[in-house]
């Protein structure tokens, strides 16, 4: 008999997590201070590729207030550099020293670390360091960098291929030979970065509390950091505590292992003082991982009814100077290629994908990794096919979506689609947008000579991946299971502990909601800690839209066991058979409530009056459960976007945005809505505004927030959000929702722009769709000097 509440999951519970933030009492990295703390500033490379001939730190070391100036030469031999995760698709090893030793390979690479009494003094000292660079030839384009005669960035990496993989499944050549229509295009997605409002940073402290090394970091994966810190600093894992401090945005940029925080930890041990480093914005633009910058050549074969017969793609990802530690340079190229089919039936596919090293900031994971690139390329090509075949673009998509009646459906990329309804999303999106009416009125609708375009993009987003599907394809470190501990406290309250830190997604709130419902407890009696390795069981952390699935799934598993134990003791204390009892509002009671005992009372007896409780019923109320969903849970969506393009200025205005999403069983609707709209906003940035630009010497040209443009409140239209949710096959029916919407946004906006341009014979395949790119796509004459 089960009569728990089942009312809290699905409601927009106000998050307690937000309270300190609203009062200015959140403790972000830069808010943490210890007495005697030193501050670090880095000298960073001014050259994209150069030999370091000499580094003169004498004047810097002599400055009053400077404690130490660390160079790569001093560090070499004392710590192991980051060798790229041996990935079975690796073209060669990339070795990244924490501070450059003989060579620098990107503008912004750290060369020296100055430790001083305050940050301003550290920066003064940085200005006094003299570096003699011997410039080397520079690689700035992936397609050029893979040529045989291109300069080599890593000695053992031929053709600068940090990663290369080929894949074929099904009869691809045959499909193309027999196709009724073949559409083929090239695409370019520009380089971008997560641009969290808060940069990276850490406070590393020696013997603060009971740990030899405690490190507060702005980071998404505290236990993974602990693992590698212990390894690189030759400490036992129990010597190290990692706390993900209040983190101001992550989006994947804070899910890699970087040299700076590791160096600060080393310095804390060496100098035996707390060490703080805060990444300022100028640093962040060059020192934190970049994303995207992909070239895709895509070819699709169709039959006469518009069914996809085969996909053939050639992909280049400009992955920067090093294979980032943990996820490797393989992330983007492998995911673009492998996830290209999206929600569509693809019987045969082939790809060649490459991660090419260049002399730029290394690329790491960022919201939806390769899927926006893959989806945008595919969706644009579907629109091209629709035009060629004389078919409506939505109709073409309907014919190709994997439908519910075919599921479980294994696609040519070997992914299994189940518990998701792509068609329902597309139908609802078209209905809510009044798609037919939009098309009918398209020519006359736009004001003032503007060109109106309509774009519809469907996406599939694999969330909550278990061990059978690689998040980091080919990497040695394979996440896929996570643990949660539920503990009844002496007061009868429940503590949930997990290593799943939030960067604003309200993970703790969501897990409290699930636990409260599963256990029949009042929400106010449930608390959650998510950021501290000293408190949580092992977990991989927050990335790849996994916490709703893993955290909630593990909570449910643990709660089931905890319930049993609580009811067993309750049965003893109430002298009632267990089958007649349930838990409601934090009390164990019979259905008619004639007998009841609060969990507070039960806990007190269990802990403080154990004499009369049989041993086997009092083995503790602390349960740790691991959860591996084995497979992933497909989230999905269909976004319909209407744009007006100004053919004189190239300006693109989004005039209507309809988003339909399938995020499985929703825990907190308001939180989910925030995630979806946040993802759409980043997608708008990606489609229209954001680009990191380098010149041919590898010098970054977009170095401030005046150059790198992210959307403000004026660039985001009203989003009409609707749901077509299908529960997942994972425990609880949850799906992840943090990344899907950015995929839909980039794809739908790209399609809408091209729909507008196609009316004038224009064609835009490079993004972001800056006004200038739009005008060039319209063949508007523009005279340079």
């Amino acid at each position, binding site marked *: 008999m089960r009569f728990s509440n089942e009312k809290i999951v699905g409601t927009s519970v106000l*998050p307690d997590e937000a309270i300190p933030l609203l009062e200015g009492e959140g403790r972000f990295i830069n808010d943490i201070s210890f007495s005697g703390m030193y501050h670090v500033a880095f000298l960073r490379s001014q050259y994209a590729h150069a030999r370091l001939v000499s580094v003169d730190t004498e004047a810097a070391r002599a400055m009053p207030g400077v404690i130490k100036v660390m160079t790569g030469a001093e560090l070499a031999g004392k710590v192991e550099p980051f060798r790229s995760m041996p990935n079975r698709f690796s073209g060669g090893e990339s070795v990244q020293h924490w501070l450059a030793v003989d060579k620098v390979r990107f503008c912004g690479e750290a060369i020296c670390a100055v430790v001083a009494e305050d940050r301003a003094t550290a920066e003064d000292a940085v200005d006094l360091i003299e570096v003699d660079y011997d410039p080397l030839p520079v690689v700035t384009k992936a397609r050029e960098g893979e040529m045989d005669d291109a300069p080599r960035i890593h000695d053992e990496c031929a053709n600068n291929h940090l990663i290369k993989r080929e894949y074929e499944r099904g009869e691809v050549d045959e499909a193309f030979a027999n196709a009724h229509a073949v559409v083929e295009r090239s695409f370019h997605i520009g380089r971008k970065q997560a641009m969290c*409002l808060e940069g990276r940073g850490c406070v590393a402290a020696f013997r603060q509390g009971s740990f030899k090394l405690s490190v507060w970091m702005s980071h998404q994966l505290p236990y993974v950091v602990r693992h590698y810190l212990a390894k690189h600093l030759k400490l036992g894992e129990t010597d190290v505590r990692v706390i993900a401090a209040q983190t101001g945005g992550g989006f994947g940029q804070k899910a890699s292992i970087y040299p700076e925080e590791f160096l600060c930890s080393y310095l804390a041990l060496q100098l035996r003082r707390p060490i703080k480093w805060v990444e300022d914005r100028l640093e962040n633009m060059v020192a934190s991982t970049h994303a995207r910058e992909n070239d895709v050549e895509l070819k699709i074969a169709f039959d006469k009814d518009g069914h996809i017969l085969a996909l053939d793609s050639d992909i280049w990802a400009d992955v920067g100077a090093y294979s980032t530690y943990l996820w490797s340079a393989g992330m983007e190229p492998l995911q673009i290629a492998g996830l290209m089919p999206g929600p569509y039936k693809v019987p045969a596919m082939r790809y060649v994908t490459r991660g090419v090293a260049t002399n730029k900031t290394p690329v790491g994971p960022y919201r939806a990794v390769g899927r926006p690139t893959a989806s945008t390329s595919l969706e644009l090509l579907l629109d091209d096919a629709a035009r060629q075949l004389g078919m409506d673009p939505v109709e073409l998509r309907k014919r190709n979506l994997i439908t519910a009646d075919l599921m479980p459906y294994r696609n040519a990329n070997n992914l299994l689609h189940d518990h998701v309804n792509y068609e329902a999303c597309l139908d609802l999106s078209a209905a809510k947008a009044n798609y037919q009416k939009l098309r009918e009125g398209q020519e006359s609708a736009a004001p003032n000579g503007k060109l109106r375009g309509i774009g519809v993009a469907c996406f599939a987003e694999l969330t909550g991946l278990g061990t059978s599907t690689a998040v980091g394809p080919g990497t040695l470190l394979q996440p896929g299971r996570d643990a949660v501990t539920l503990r009844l406290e002496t007061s009868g309250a429940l503590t949930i502990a997990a290593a799943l830190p939030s960067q604003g*997604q309200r993970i703790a709130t969501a897990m409290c909601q699930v636990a409260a419902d599963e256990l029949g407890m009042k929400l106010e009696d449930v608390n959650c800690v998510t950021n501290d390795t000293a408190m949580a069981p092992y977990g991989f952390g927050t990335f790849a839209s996994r916490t709703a699935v893993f955290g909630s799934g593990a909570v449910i598993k643990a709660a089931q066991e905890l319930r049993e134990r609580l009811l067993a003791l309750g049965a003893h204390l109430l002298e009632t058979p267990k089958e007649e009892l349930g838990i409601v509002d934090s009390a164990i009671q019979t259905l008619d409530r004639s007998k009841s005992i609060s969990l507070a009372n039960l806990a007190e007896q269990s802990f403080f009056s154990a004499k009369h409780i049989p041993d086997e019923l009092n083995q503790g109320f602390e349960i740790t459960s691991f959860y591996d969903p084995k497979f992933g849970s497909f989230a999905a969506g269909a976004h319909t976007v209407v744009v007006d393009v100004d053919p004189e200025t190239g300006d693109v205005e989004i005039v209507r945005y309809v988003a339909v999403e399938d995020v499985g069983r929703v825990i907190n609707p308001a939180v989910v809505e925030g995630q979806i709209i946040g993802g759409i906003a980043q997608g708008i940035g990606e489609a229209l505004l954001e680009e990191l630009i380098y010149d041919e010497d590898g010098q970054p040209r977009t170095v401030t927030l005046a150059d790198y443009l992210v959307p403000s409140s004026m660039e985001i239209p009203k989003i009409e959000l609707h749901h077509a949710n299908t529960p997942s096959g994972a425990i609880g029916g949850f799906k992840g929702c943090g990344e899907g919407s950015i995929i839909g946004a980039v794809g739908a906006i790209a399609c809408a722009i091209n729909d507008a341009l196609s009316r004038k014979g224009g064609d835009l395949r490079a993004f972001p769709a800056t006004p200038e790119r739009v005008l060039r796509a319209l063949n508007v004459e523009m005279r340079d000097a």
Partner: protein
Amino acid sequence: MARDRTITCKVNGRAYEKSVPVRQSLADFLRDTLSLTGTHLGCEHGVCGACTVLMNGRSVRSCLTLAVQADETDIVTIEGLRSDSGEWHQIQKSFHENFGLQCGYCTPGFLITAIELLEENPDPTENEVREALSGNICRCSGYSAIVTAVMAAARDMLELQKT
């Protein structure tokens, strides 16, 4: 070279007299000298708006203002929004009830900017709200919930004024 100057200022209603390095920003003065770490640094070149505080009733970028320039001024930061008895300003309530924040890093700047807006324009349209907030960057929310929160605060504050 005189590297320090003594300034007197009021912050959140409390008077201070402090010796400050002339090069110290107002943001760093608030955060490091007064331990009011609620004002955040997101760019230190005036674009992101996370550092926005009120100086003599007007919003300013504390990262672009020197601490010495705050001499003889009245500063309000996010910490000063709740009353002495701990009750929240309406804007804080509205942001909480409308999920107007996620990571919270940009929130201090938004609250201050919203307060100034509603002071000058107690009944703004949605477009006026969006325009007033356009100098504050949020990377998490896509602004929708923030705009809703400010509109709700405007409505609630007007209601309170009537009673």
